[in-house]
């Protein structure tokens, strides 16, 4: 089932949680709502579920306006960050809850419920835990049970609010992969909220980036990572090096240094911020060279195949820190040492005009 939200606005006192949000969630996709905490992503999810009421705007489920439909009639499955399992019920009773609460006419027989519960528990690979109580389960198991419980009422959409937020790193990774696999089997329209960019990029078909109650960018993980539309998106998806400067023809002047750029539509003299990812910077040790930014090596961390070099800016960019990712071999070839003065040359540079312009 498709979900659309149109011009959603939500205010909490003086705080604008959502500012005129319009989004399309096509049928069968797994979409991530990604953003820092307080960006409004959870509020949007709760409005779609009906647990929160928007001040203005519409939620369309399957093209029908659901704004006045009660939560229990929306047929959504909701998974909470802290599981929200019923503590006093066994795993079996938790999963069976939705079916048992149905009006007498629609309620399946106990035998049917039992079959369905076991089918769902098998789906989440926890059939052997049916008689346990939630307190006897690990965090990862609990979240899988919560998912089985949400699926028991055959929801038309699945909404997950930071589903892995309360779990430790290893379990998170496992469950991520598992959720993706489950979605590929069920093809149920799903939205999940996360503040973890790695999680969003790894699991989702599409990513919606949000900040301060606004949508910053929508796209496939590849698109948003490779072609960030705004400085916020660039900064949020992975680590970055940042240069403040002024456009000077074909290059950006940063203090006394210059960086070549490939962006064509920049006005001469415009104040800009330029971004480069750590792996998009190379180190030049030639003292005669004038290209790139002057920096001094602070620390070299070379554990694996790639080495991370941390540098401090000198000349025009004093006080700034840079991070470069190159192969370990290259560190050895260049003979880099702590305290050495080098120049940083970006192989790829993304330039944004300052002051709100999103170019």
């Amino acid at each position, binding site marked *: 089932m498709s979900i659309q939200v149109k011009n959603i606005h939500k205010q909490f006192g003086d705080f604008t949680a959502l500012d005129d949000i319009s989004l399309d969630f096509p049928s069968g996709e797994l979409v991530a709502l990604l953003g820092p905490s307080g960006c409004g992503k959870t509020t949007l999810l709760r409005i779609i579920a009906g647990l929160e009421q928007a001040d203005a705007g519409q939620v369309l489920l399957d093209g029908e306006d659901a704004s006045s439909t009660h939560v229990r009639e929306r047929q959504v499955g909701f998974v909470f960050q802290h599981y929200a399992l019923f503590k006093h019920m066994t795993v079996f009773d938790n999963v069976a809850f939705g079916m048992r609460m149905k009006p007498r006419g629609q309620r399946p027989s106990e035998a049917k419920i039992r079959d369905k519960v076991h089918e769902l528990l098998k789906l989440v690979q926890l059939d052997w835990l049916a008689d346990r*109580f939630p307190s006897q389960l690990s965090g990862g198991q609990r979240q899988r049970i919560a998912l089985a419980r949400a699926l028991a009422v055959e929801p038309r959409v699945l909404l997950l609010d930071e589903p892995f937020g309360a779990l430790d790193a290893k379990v998170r990774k496992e469950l991520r992969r598992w959720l993706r696999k489950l979605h590929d089997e069920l093809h149920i329209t799903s939205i999940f909220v996360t503040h973890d960019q790695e999680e969003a990029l790894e699991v989702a078909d599409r990513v919606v980036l949000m900040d301060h109650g606004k949508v910053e960018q929508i796209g496939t993980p590849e698109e948003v990572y490779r072609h960030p539309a705004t400085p916020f998106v660039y900064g949020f998806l992975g680590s970055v090096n940042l240069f403040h400067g002024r456009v000077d023809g074909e290059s950006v002047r940063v203090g006394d240094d210059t960086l070549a750029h490939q962006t064509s539509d920049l006005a001469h003299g415009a104040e800009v911020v330029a971004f480069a990812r750590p792996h998009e910077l190379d180190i030049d040790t030639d003292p005669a060279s004038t290209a790139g930014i002057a920096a001094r090596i602070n620390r070299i961390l070379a554990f694996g195949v790639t080495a991370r070099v941390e540098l401090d800016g000198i000349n025009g960019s004093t006080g700034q820190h840079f991070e470069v990712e190159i192969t370990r071999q290259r560190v050895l070839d260049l003979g880099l040492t702590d305290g050495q003065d080098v120049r940083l040359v970006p192989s790829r540079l993304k330039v944004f005009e300052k002051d709100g312009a999103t170019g």
Partner: protein
Amino acid sequence: MAGATSMHLGSDHASRFESKAATRETPLVKWTILALALGFFAIFLLMPLIAVFVEALRKGWETYVSALVDPDALSAIKLTLLAAAISVPLNLVFGVAAAWAIAKFEFRGKQILITLIDLPFSVSPVIAGLVFVLIFGAQGWFGPWLSEHDIKIVFAVPGIVLATVFVTFPFIARELIPLMQAQGREEEEAAVVLGARGWQVFWHVTLPNIKWGLMYGVILTNARAMGEFGAVSVVSGHIRGQTNTLPLHVEILYNEYMFSAAFAVASLLALLALVTLVIKNWVEHQAARSYRETQESAS
């Protein structure tokens, strides 16, 4: 008050503290503190309790039993049970409704409501009784209207029930509010999303989560309802065989120098208190257990 869940948690820690030489106090300090505490306990708590039973049985079993089966005593027992039987269910409903509203919803005047719920605790019971006399008494606001329609509230059973309901009002709400606030709304939201109706959510999710706290509140309410003296004394009028509750009956007997009978009836109230304590302990134990499970499931 809000303690059913906070006890029984520190005992492991305490014994560990004691068993280690590094953290142990000197014997002198230890025994002084113990002696003080136990001495206080013996003089102020244990001695009166023993005195009640000793005095009650001083003139033998026959006097004891005859004091209890006296028609006036029996009618006092009946009235006390009736007052409790009405005020406990009433305050159960009020308390759950008030706690639910305060813990789960945001609305204007919430703080005022919380303060109002506490009013019966902060007002002297005598004043509480007087208020009802002033409202429903012969010279009170509704006095003329009530006497026209031949309805008696003050100096009659309805007045006693009203006063009892008033003084026991805060117990259940006060016990449930922190408990429900700590539990939050998530489980209920989960139930609603799964299609449960309001009543189903309450019955299947909310109630099981608060049952031990609720039980604790009911026990306290019941104990207070049966033992209340001040407020009831003002509205009762002390009509023997009609508007005397157990505590009032004890006072009358005592004032008439029938000490053995007074203590006999008092021993009934003391027994009730002991039974209440036993049940209360058991409930606390259960509550602590379910609280621990909650903690585990939250971690």
